């Protein structure tokens, strides 16, 4: 094929293409360029010029086609019809192909177990003010504990002039939930809620760290609630979740919004402490699972609940980690990758 024929073939291809720029990367070009050094020395310059001219012609055709495409008369559809003309009715993909995201499925499981335990499921927010994220949770303005939360902030500000934030924990809902169900207390019933939802930390990504992940918050307030009940409630939940008896323990921790505060661990449900090389607990026999504590009196007061009459507990734990442990998922980034190869396994 000579250069002229090739030029017309390629411009023709451009004219047909929906993505004309692609033609510029056609193998024919590479082959032509490769031929330049093989030409007789006296021919080389003119051959090169002709190749260049051809490239310019195709480039011009690409631009023309692009313009044509943007103004091309798209064929309108009858949007009221159930099917296209001369086509059969469209068919859904096979049911076998369909999947529910493993994190969403797990959230459903958590929510159902807590539902049976008498906890209502509430939703969190993806953008909130600092009043809910920090102030109502006993983090005063400028408190160093705020430094522990690498929080995404917007350039837009709220009425107080503070940036809005992407909540770094589901606790951002505590004040709203305490207020919403406050009247339960007057009826002699507990406030009992879980909030499984999306949270954000401004972190660099790696196999163990995501900036976007899922937590489940728990809140329980009534008369006479003590710290032993917190531990027992979480133990009961985890035993139900894993379907076996488990040991649990708490270590002291610090959160501004609970006092006392704990880090809660459970005995490894996978190796039960018998495998020195256990991938989940690292052979420790224990898994640090979540942070929890007795709700700080200032948090109750911020929701107009008298901490001298009512006490309560709260916890917050990661859902991603539960799912990763359950299936042995090696990289937390898979969850939000939208890779079908990953999703199709659930």
């Amino acid at each position, binding site marked *: 094929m000579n250069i002229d024929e090739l030029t017309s073939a390629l411009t023709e291809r451009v004219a047909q293409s929906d993505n004309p720029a692609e033609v510029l990367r056609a193998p024919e070009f590479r082959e032509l360029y490769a031929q330049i050094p093989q030409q007789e020395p006296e021919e080389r310059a003119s051959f090169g010029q002709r190749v260049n001219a051809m490239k310019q012609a195709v480039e011009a055709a690409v631009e023309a086609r692009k313009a044509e495409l943007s103004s091309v008369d798209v064929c309108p559809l009858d949007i009221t019809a159930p099917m296209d003309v001369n086509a059969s009715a469209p068919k859904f993909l096979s049911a076998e192909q369909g999947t529910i995201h493993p994190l969403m499925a797990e959230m459903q499981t958590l929510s159902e177990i807590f539902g049976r335990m008498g906890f209502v499921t509430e939703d969190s927010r993806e953008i909130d003010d600092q009043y809910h994220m920090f102030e109502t949770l006993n983090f005063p303005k400028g408190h160093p504990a705020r430094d522990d939360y690498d929080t995404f902030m917007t350039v837009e500000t709220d009425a107080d002039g503070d940036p809005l934030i992407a909540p770094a924990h589901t606790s951002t809902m505590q004040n709203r939930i305490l207020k919403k169900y406050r009247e339960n207390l007057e009826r002699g019933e507990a406030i009992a809620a879980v909030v499984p939802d999306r949270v954000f930390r401004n972190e660099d990504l790696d196999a163990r760290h995501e*900036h*976007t992940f899922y937590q489940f918050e728990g809140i329980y307030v009534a008369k006479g609630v003590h710290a032993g009940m917190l531990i027992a409630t979480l133990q009961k939940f985890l035993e139900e979740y894993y379907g076996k008896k488990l040991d649990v323990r708490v*270590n002291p921790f610090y959160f501004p919004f609970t006092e006392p505060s704990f880090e809660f661990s459970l005995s490894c449900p996978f190796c039960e402490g018998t495998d020195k090389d256990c991938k989940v607990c690292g052979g420790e026999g224990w898994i640090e699972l979540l942070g929890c504590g007795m709700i700080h009196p200032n948090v109750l007061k911020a929701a107009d609940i008298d901490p001298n009459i009512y006490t309560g507990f709260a916890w917050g734990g990661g859902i991603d980690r539960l799912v990763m442990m359950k299936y042995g998922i090696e990289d937390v980034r898979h969850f939000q990758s939208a890779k079908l190869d990953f999703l199709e396994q659930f």
Partner: protein
Amino acid sequence: MKVSLNTIKQFIDFELPPVDELVKRINEQLGGVEEVVDLSEKYKDAKIVRVVECEKHPDADRLSVCKVDVGSGELVQVVCGAPNVHADMWAIWLPPESTVPSSYGTNEPFVLGARELRGVMSNGMLAAGDELGINGDHDGIIEITEKDLLLGIKLKAGASFAETFGLDDTTIDIENKMFTHRPDLFGQLGVAREIAGIFGHQFTSPEWYRKVEYGIENAENSDMLPLEVFNDASEKAPRFMAVAIKDVTVGPSPLWLQCELVRLGGKSINNIVDITNYVMLLTSQPTHAYDYDKLRGHKLGVRMAHDGEKATLLNDKTYELTSDDIVIVDAEGPVGLAGIMGGSNSEVSPETKNIVLEVANFDMYAVRKSSMRHGLFTDALTRFNKGQSPLQNPIVMSQLQNFITGIAGGEQASEVFDKKAFDDEKDEDVLGAKWLPGTISADFINQRLGLSLNDSEIAQLLENVEFHAHEMGEMNEICFTAPFWRTDIEQPEDIVEEVGRLYGFDKLPLELPQRSVTPAPQNTSRILKRQIRDNLKHAGANEVLTYSFVHENVLKKAGQDPTHAYRLGNALSPDLQYYRLSLLPSLLDKVHMNIKAGHDMFALYEIGKTHFKGEMDAVEPNVPNEDTHVALVVTANEKAAQPGAAFYLAKKYLHGLIGFATIELKKMTEFDMASDVWGAQLSAPYEPKRSAVLVHDGKIWGVVGEFRTGVRQGFKLPAYSAGFEVHLDLLAQNFAQYTPLSRFPSNSQDISLRSNNKVSYRDIYGVTIAALEEAGADLQTKVEPISIYQSSTDSSTKTTTFRITFTHYDKTLTDDDIKPLMDHVAGVALSRLSAERT
């Protein structure tokens, strides 16, 4: 927070358990242990030795051949290159086979041998400070003299260096986060007190911590150095203490102090700086020393900085200050950024003769803000921003003075200035002690912990860590006063934590709360989402999760306008610039990679939130409105694509979630986008001629269709691609609509109507239904589309075929019954739509 067990032992009067047990108890009752380092291993071979003979090497000018008493009875020969080696000196010897401590634990540990140096055998080496990892000194080997030893320690040839200098130690690193509220736990003393408490031992602070001795309180005589001290920022600097010391000798610290610093994770600089650091590491109160002669006008004070004022600090960087920074100044300007770092212009140097010591207290919020503003984080700041007690200042000043004059010589040369913002040491506003002293009942504590401790048990737990606590003798109440360093004790719940922790949280009774049988309310939106998931799973779609934030390019590729989106100001990743306006662009962004990964045809969907700048929540006007959407994209490469336009498949997916009855599905070309800014953004990726909008109350609540050519190209979508996005509020629970069954068989017939191509399917269908309703009294009819045909030679018309199924409740229908009905439909279609029956 690094803790040295040898230092802790100096403060307690009981035996610590083995390290494993200790670490376990610290984890359980104080804070998470991040690291345990056994220093003794690092220094296990280093020995104290006496150099007995020292002669020049026969073949090397710079080397000396030493005979060294290593305590074994025989002298050992070591060749040494240090200029300061001489006979009759005490030195530190690293024998053959030992690892040089500074290389211990690194990738390349350096193991010594016995080898010839220029023909003379050398067994190991005599060590310099840097080889021991104690200081940066490599100019000579360490010579140990009397002043390097703590009182009562005697040197012995062959003795372990580690044991002699307390490096036979284990250090424990406890997570700082645990101590966010505990200013006292950033000092060894505080940690020692807690360790005593958790093992049930009474702790008593050392005498120097309980008694303040300044030397001369007030002195005015000719030996004094002139010094003026002021506090012009008493709101942010509740206390500012300073004293001048004259005639100090700046030099290396004694070896014992250098070793103390090594254990506590510090590094030796010079004796003055080391002492200020050491006192901080013990008490958690930062202190600072200035070169007196560099303080212009012999003045030192604290004030708020002026906007634009500049300070050059010890890191040699210059900072431009604001009026929110607290600054330490002399007569002419800044000599330090309060609570964070000293200034380079007043730094103590080897030439320094006279110094001024500062011990002060600064507002934790102000110093934290300064540190954030200037991006400057130091050990002093870590302590100040936890809220140190100003009541500790005189104690620390007194001990600092003792150490300085004891180690660097010199004498006090001014009064001890004490510029404080409060008179009464019990002034609550200043001290932050909002709840002191107080009483607390054992019931209050037991109720919150589920325990049944009595008043004397509780009092004892608190007394152990130096609270003043005693039983009231009635009502099971305890009267207590928190010690001044416990600035975190503000409310009774803080005492609950203290008691529970010291008693042991592992002893709490596990008991489930009693609950009422009232059912927990349902979350209707979660139920709806579950139904959507079930529905779409059965229709073969894959649920995905994508980030709530997108890169500007994703918005632009989708034809959306970023100015409507909330923008992140501090994201580490450049991919996270904006809150998304709708979900669909995120899904489009995931199509190409899945096609490339070999998936021929698939449907991705996501349920998620969207935000539109300026729209605020109806109930909480201070926070943005959040809408929950479900979006789906269905796509196929050429070989897998179904016949017909992808639009119809996307619409079928949408139809599966929503009945169209109550919502108007409108041609996008016929909707006035200018009337709905949000709807315009939602619809932006869609090709108007091949898309429909869901309109409700005049606004767009959803959109379904194919994508603009530019969008398809931008996201590299296959030609067969379409999708939808709809507001979740529009999707209600879909109940099945039941029609009673007839005992009689149904009868079906097809009718084909040829109409102008411009007549919409909806009109033809509508006319058919209307005609049947007019005609059939007792009949149940069902109209199903069979095909829409267009001839390849005539695109001006189309033929729509329906199958109509008739059912009667009282009889079997014959063709004669049905014929007039079919004729009626044909007649109506002809008259109203000019559609001919074919």
